[in-house]
């Protein structure tokens, strides 16, 4: 297969991007890093296992899901809405961070991460989970399972799992409407 250049357009973190001409087979993570200078997504395993690289895909039906950017071509996102870890904090007009998202804040407070390599993936996974709980709240006794299911595939080599878990649980319990009373 010879290399072909195709322009690509999408929305990233609420802003339109492109059309940018990029080689046909480029992976999303390389597109983010090399073309857009969005280097927050981490390349860990590069083969779809660790989930350090996940980005959020916002679907037209209002749901969101994680997509592994290391094994997904940039052209898969043509015309779609994407959020990366850079899209969560509030910035002022100068581009400075003025407030973290609740989950970022809680990860900090819990010292959830050590080296931080896996953190962008966990931030995105937790965000997707919280958004899902907003659409489909779970009973309190199902919350632990929901968090486990939401984060389970993410690997943290510094083994911060428990603190990630606890931080997500705290945000879920503190945010109205995510957890139902009773069964």
């Amino acid at each position: 297969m010879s290399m072909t250049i195709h322009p690509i357009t999408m929305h990233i973190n609420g802003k339109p991007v492109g059309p940018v001409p990029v080689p046909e087979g480029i992976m999303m993570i390389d597109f983010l890093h090399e073309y857009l200078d969005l280097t927050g997504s981490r390349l860990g395993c590069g083969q779809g296992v660790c989930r350090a690289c996940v980005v959020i895909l916002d679907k037209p039906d209002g749901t969101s899901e994680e997509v592994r950017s290391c094994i997904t071509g940039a052209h898969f996102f043509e015309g779609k809405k994407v959020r990366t870890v850079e899209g969560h904090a509030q910035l002022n007009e100068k581009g400075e961070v003025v407030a973290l998202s609740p989950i970022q804040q809680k990860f900090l407070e819990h010292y959830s991460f050590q080296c931080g390599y896996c953190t962008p993936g966990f931030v995105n996974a937790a965000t997707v989970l919280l958004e899902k709980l907003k659409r489909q709240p779970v009973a309190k006794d199902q919350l632990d399972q929901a968090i486990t299911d939401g984060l389970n595939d993410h690997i943290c080599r510094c083994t911060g799992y428990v603190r990630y878990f606890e931080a997500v649980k705290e945000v879920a319990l503190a945010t109205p409407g995510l957890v139902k009373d009773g069964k």
Partner: protein
Amino acid sequence: MTKLRYLGKALRMAAAPLLAATLLAACDSSSSPSAPAAGSTVKPGSADQLALGRYLTKAADCAACHTTATGAPFAGGVELASPFGKFYGSNITPDKQHGIGKWNADQFYKALHDGVTPDRHLYPAMPYTSYRSMTRADSDAIYAYLMQQKPVAVASKEADLKFPYNMRFGMMFWNVPFLKNSLSDASVGQSPAWLRGQYLSNALGHCAECHSPRGVFGQLDLSKPLAGAALGRVAAPNITPAGLAAVGWTATDLQTFFATGIAPQGSAYGEMFPVVHLSTQYLSKDDLNAVTTYLLGDKPLPPEPVKAISADAVELDAGKRLYTAVCAGCHGFQGDGKPHVAVAMKGNSTVRNADPHNLIVAMLDGIEAQKFPGTESLQDMPGFAGQLNDKELAQLSNFLRVTWGGQAADVTPERIKSMRLTTAH
């Protein structure tokens, strides 16, 4: 995990990189099991008989139906879906109340040979139509081995069948026309290896039970042995000599596949995964050779090269773009696969299959991460039912079929639509 869930999820598309296969073949030779001496010279109750029984229990793949992923060995409970309803593997531990503890060796043989237990008629979901050819000595060895297992007091689950199939005595009438003394052969041969392979494949491995088509009464269609069948979500492919040659199998690759679950033509998925996992990986080198000799025949056909196929360039280009967007990250831009990550598309027998059924199932449902014998494993493949629409999946299938399968670009969006699971998002 139930068999049904295996069907839905544990699918893995085709060919492993040569490097991995070679490494595994090397692994295998160091730990290759040897078959205990078979036959009538083995003394009842001796260590030799128990070792033989253990080997034969694996060769007959008893665990696939009688051991669940979370249950005690041989305590039953594995679900087997069929067009007639659901069957469950029974408890075959020596428990006196729920298992086979009260049976003697004659009764055990009668169950394998005639499908009749001391209490009732078995349904042919228990492959007595194949086990019927098992020798009495081998049946006794399996019986002796099972009677050594820990008894487990778990009741067997009743089959959940529609009327009139729920009337067990009906099996009496079914057996008259359909229980035959031997199965027909798909290949030709007479060498000792072929004869041993015939016994291993038909009587013990019961290959025909999944790979031969069935008639309306659920009976094996003996006029088309091993020609392929679709009992579950993943279809069992045609494994006749012509069917295997058409998708590139050689004797060496087949042996590697049975021993390790992975070969240049593909990796085991669907119901074949537990077969390798629980059964064929334990076969001795000689027996593996025998099984492949039987499947391919004494004079195997040469594996066919991939044919050059022409197709609509615009459609093909659309498929190629989809491939580079969602598949190439793991399967490689050139379809070469990635060692320990994903199998190659080039030379892949699922891609080369004239029937695109399994290719579509793999793309729609994905395949669970798989751990193969030795040190090999493959990562999970996500299902794309929620990511790609019918048209896109048809374009992708056709790109794969034309580029690496030598097959026509004849997959339609309607075909994809009809194969989506209603439970898939």
